[in-house]
């Protein structure tokens, strides 16, 4: 492909972004005086700041391009990732789980596992989370360099080192605070930089209904073709969507992944922390109007030979990720191209900063202080946070070069979330709502869940058994297999945790007050008006979710 050319104005806009984020890092450094400022942004953010950062931490450019490409491949079913695959879990986190997380004053999710269960469960989760975040951060870096090289013709090494150095600079200077500031800037740049693609697509084709009218039924509905996997683009039954994506993968990610929950911990009080995912749910529901709509525009245009629009081919295979950059090149004149590229760059860098800021917290508190140096002072921990940020970025660069020389690790990355998060959700759910779940039950159940998910992935990858055993269907896609594998890993972890807990020593109830529902007095937000209650906004969010699903049924 001929690279998208950048004009002088485009370069100025990209340069402004880089200068801006490093400048913010320097500006915030003088306000970062202790470890709570560095790791938890001082716990003084409003729910607007925490909520937008909560969503942005999840909104990497890899996801934006990947989901637009997935829409081209699977059709509108990809919207399930934004609606049933996110909103119920985000609301559940805000209403039921956040009071336990926030009130226990923990600094990380493994910290909760230590209080609820024991040190070994905390360290197990801390190590697996740290490895996962560094791998994701490195792959993110690799993917960014790949995109910039493919579409803009930029040099691999310069792209990776420049963005890694920028992220290392501003996260080292002021930790989570600067990560949150840049994530919010990224949120606005993504909306302004990419929503115009959908708007221009609608202008070119006519209306949203005209776009949907140009697609086959297997691609333009959400549920009506889900009772028969052969009739929809994702080749999945509705049960797989509900159990695998809507329940396990979604709840596993949104209620246990420290990368996003760390933003809620930065809120100034419990009500703000509870409002954080609830506010984010409204913006999450709106995202399909960027990514899904752009993907549908790309399908409609490529079905029309007179449009001249065609996705790139790599070695005879369609490059689905090229959909969004090609639409930018189609509609954006100079200046706007710079904005679109900046939006993608901001997405990559904010995603990397999110991973690094979560890594430095888990490393410092759940591995370094917990295992290596139990007597470390607050000042030493602040220093360790800064050192681990730099080391984390260097390891990410190593992972990125590893990925470059061994591209199939990209495939493995797709599955890592279901190895770590799906079983962890079973542990968290049981631990938070059933008092008699024991530390040994949680630990061994978690190990079994992680190993079983890994085994199922490798088994299919190396043809040890047929994928249909996992999906219980004669037809399936990679996405369907991901959903079902997550479900089985969750179930194995849950069953083993319960069975082992029946036969092992329980923690005294008095040690679990404030950590387990039923043993904790519930007096949350009782004396505030209805319109200020998080539950009020959660119900509105749920109603909007139902309306959207009915409209696009």
């Amino acid at each position, binding site marked *: 492909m001929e690279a998208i050319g950048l004009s002088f*104005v485009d370069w100025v806009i990209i340069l402004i972004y880089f200068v801006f984020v490093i400048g913010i890092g320097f500006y915030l450094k003088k306000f970062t005086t202790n470890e709570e400022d560095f790791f938890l942004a001082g716990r003084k953010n409003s729910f607007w700041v925490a909520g937008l950062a909560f969503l942005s931490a999840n909104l990497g450019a890899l996801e934006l391009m990947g989901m637009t490409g997935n829409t081209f491949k699977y059709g509108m079913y990809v919207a399930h990732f934004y609606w049933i695959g996110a909103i119920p879990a985000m609301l559940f986190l805000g209403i039921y789980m956040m009071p336990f997380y926030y009130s226990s004053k923990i600094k990380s999710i493994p910290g909760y596992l230590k209080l609820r269960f024991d040190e070994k469960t905390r360290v197990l989760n801390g190590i697996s989370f740290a490895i996962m975040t560094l791998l994701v951060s490195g792959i993110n870096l690799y993917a960014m360099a790949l995109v910039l090289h493919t579409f803009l013709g930029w040099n691999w090494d310069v792209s990776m080192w420049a963005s890694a150095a920028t992220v290392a600079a501003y996260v080292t200077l002021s930790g989570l605070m600067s990560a949150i500031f840049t994530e919010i800037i990224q949120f606005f740049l993504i909306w302004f930089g990419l929503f115009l693609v959908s708007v221009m697509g609608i202008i070119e084709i006519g209306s949203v209904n005209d776009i949907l009218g140009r697609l086959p039924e297997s691609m333009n509905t959400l549920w009506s073709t889900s009772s028969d996997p052969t009739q929809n683009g994702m080749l999945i039954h509705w049960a797989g969507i509900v159990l695998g994506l809507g329940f396990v993968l979604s709840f596993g990610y949104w209620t246990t992944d420290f990368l996003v929950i760390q933003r809620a911990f930065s809120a100034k009080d419990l009500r703000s922390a509870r409002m954080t995912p609830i506010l984010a749910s409204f913006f999450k529901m709106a995202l399909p109007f960027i990514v899904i709509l752009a993907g549908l525009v790309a399908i409609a245009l490529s079905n029309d030979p007179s449009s001249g629009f065609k996705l790139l081919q790599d070695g005879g295979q369609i490059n689905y990720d090229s959909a969004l950059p090609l639409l930018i090149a189609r*509609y954006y004149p100079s200046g706007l191209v710079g904005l679109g590229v900046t939006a993608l760059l901001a997405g990559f860098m904010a995603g990397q900063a999110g991973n690094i800021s979560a890594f430095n917290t888990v490393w410092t508190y759940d591995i370094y202080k917990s295992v290596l140096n139990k007597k470390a002072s607050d000042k030493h921990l602040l220093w360790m946070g800064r050192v681990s940020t730099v080391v984390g970025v260097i390891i990410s660069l190593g992972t990125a070069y590893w990925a470059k020389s061994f591209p199939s690790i990209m495939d493995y990355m797709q599955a890592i979330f279901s190895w770590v998060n799906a079983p962890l959700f079973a542990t968290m759910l049981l631990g938070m709502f059933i008092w008699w779940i024991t530390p040994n039950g949680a630990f061994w159940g978690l190990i079994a869940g992680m190993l079983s998910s890994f085994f199922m992935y490798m088994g299919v990858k190396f043809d040890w058994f047929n994928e249909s055993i996992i999906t219980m269907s004669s037809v399936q896609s990679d996405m369907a297999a991901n959903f079902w594998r997550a479900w089985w890993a969750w179930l194995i972890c849950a069953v083993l945790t319960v069975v082992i807990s029946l036969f092992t020593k329980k923690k005294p109830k008095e040690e679990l007050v404030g950590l387990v529902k039923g043993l904790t007095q519930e007096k949350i937000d009782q004396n505030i008006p209805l319109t200020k209650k998080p539950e009020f906004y959660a119900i509105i969010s749920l109603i909007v979710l139902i309306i959207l699903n009915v409209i696009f049924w």
Partner: protein
Amino acid sequence: MKPIWYFVGLILLIMGGIIFLNGIYQALSPETVNTVLKETHPSLWWGAVMLISGAIMFFKTKNQSV
């Protein structure tokens, strides 16, 4: 410390201003643009939307601190 909205307003104001001015140039010299739907002048109106949004956020928060 300045609120985050101050910085968001500032960057939207600067970028929107540049895109808007570039849009004026593109409207006056249409031969410099060769994208689909160039006759709708997206730089002009989208730049203006960014500029106005950024200006509102910036000027509302420029004297605030948190």
